[in-house]
């Protein structure tokens, strides 16, 4: 007759794994690695200044966040809630107005010939601007671009921009580029 081996007592196993679980819960954090991704321009070479590219006045939307966290667009105070609409209107130029940016016909694979705006949003801030306000403004501008992309995507493909596959979303990204330039800083408000 085969000997019956005694059963292992596994009752404490659960306790051990509970200990491990609590240990990991305490030492780790659900990290929120998310944010607004931007690309910085390459540094200016002082010996070799860039050629004077003639950007027409109508193609630039000057956004300035002042020391007192006020928002100026083209030199006028506006409310931050209106910024998104202003930016959208500027980039889309639906009525083809003369004081809003020009458009350029471009051939984009997947979309065919399409009008691409030449508009650039120039975002300037002061040294005294609070980071929170700056991010708020960045967020509104990003929202304007993503809404324009969504509109175009719905019009062309009938789905949201985020639901498109890679080649289609690349095409839309080319048609509505992220035209935000973080301008060279100026020292106005001190530290």
């Amino acid at each position: 007759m085969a000997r019956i081996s005694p059963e292992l007592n596994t009752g404490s196993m659960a306790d051990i794994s509970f200990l491990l679980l609590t240990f990991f819960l305490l030492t780790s954090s659900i990290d929120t690695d998310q944010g607004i991704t931007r690309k910085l321009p390459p540094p200016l070479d002082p010996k070799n200044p860039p050629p004077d590219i003639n950007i027409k006045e109508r193609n630039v939307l000057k956004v300035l966040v002042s020391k007192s966290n006020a928002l100026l667009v083209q030199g006028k105070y506006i409310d931050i809630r209106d910024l998104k609409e202003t930016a959208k209107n500027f980039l889309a130029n639906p009525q083809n107005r003369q004081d809003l940016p020009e458009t350029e016909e471009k051939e984009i694979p997947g979309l065919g010939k399409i009008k691409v705006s030449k508009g650039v949003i120039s975002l300037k801030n002061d040294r005294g601007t609070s980071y929170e306000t700056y991010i708020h403004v960045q967020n509104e501008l990003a929202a304007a671009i993503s809404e324009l992309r969504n509109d175009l995507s719905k019009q062309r493909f009938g789905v949201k921009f985020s639901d498109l596959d890679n080649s289609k979303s690349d095409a839309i990204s080319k048609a509505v580029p992220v035209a935000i330039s973080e301008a060279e800083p100026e020292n106005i408000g001190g530290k």
Partner: protein
Amino acid sequence: MARFKKAGSRKVPGINTGSMSDIIFMFLFFFMVITTIREVTLLVKIKPPAASEIQKLEKKALVSFIYVGQPLQSKFGNESRIQLNNSFASVSDIQAFIAAERQARDEADRKMLTTSLKVDGDTKMGIVTDVKQELRKAGAFKINYSTRKKGKVTE
């Protein structure tokens, strides 16, 4: 006529707890996968601002962090300061930091390196601008302003 067993002879069967540990282990692995172990101890207060138009950083191994905020301990002053790795640093240290971060990665991955700016909401832009200028000089153009998630502004 029905017969009844004596109440005293009935025995409650013991609950089998053998699978309990498996369940807990499943929990454990789940948490191990979704969380990351903190690599640095924060010396500065960071409460990032909220934003709705956010993108997730995909490759966590290719992200280097720069922390900017008020020091947690008041003996280091109230001015916003920069933290790199585990110590306070000045703006001029950033280029060396980026070079070291590049050195630690594979050659193929170096171009993909993103710098995540974890900046406290109350910080003034002056120091952030300085950091950005240094990053431009160092050639680290891909940056990410770290933010919390917030619901859509509209809709």
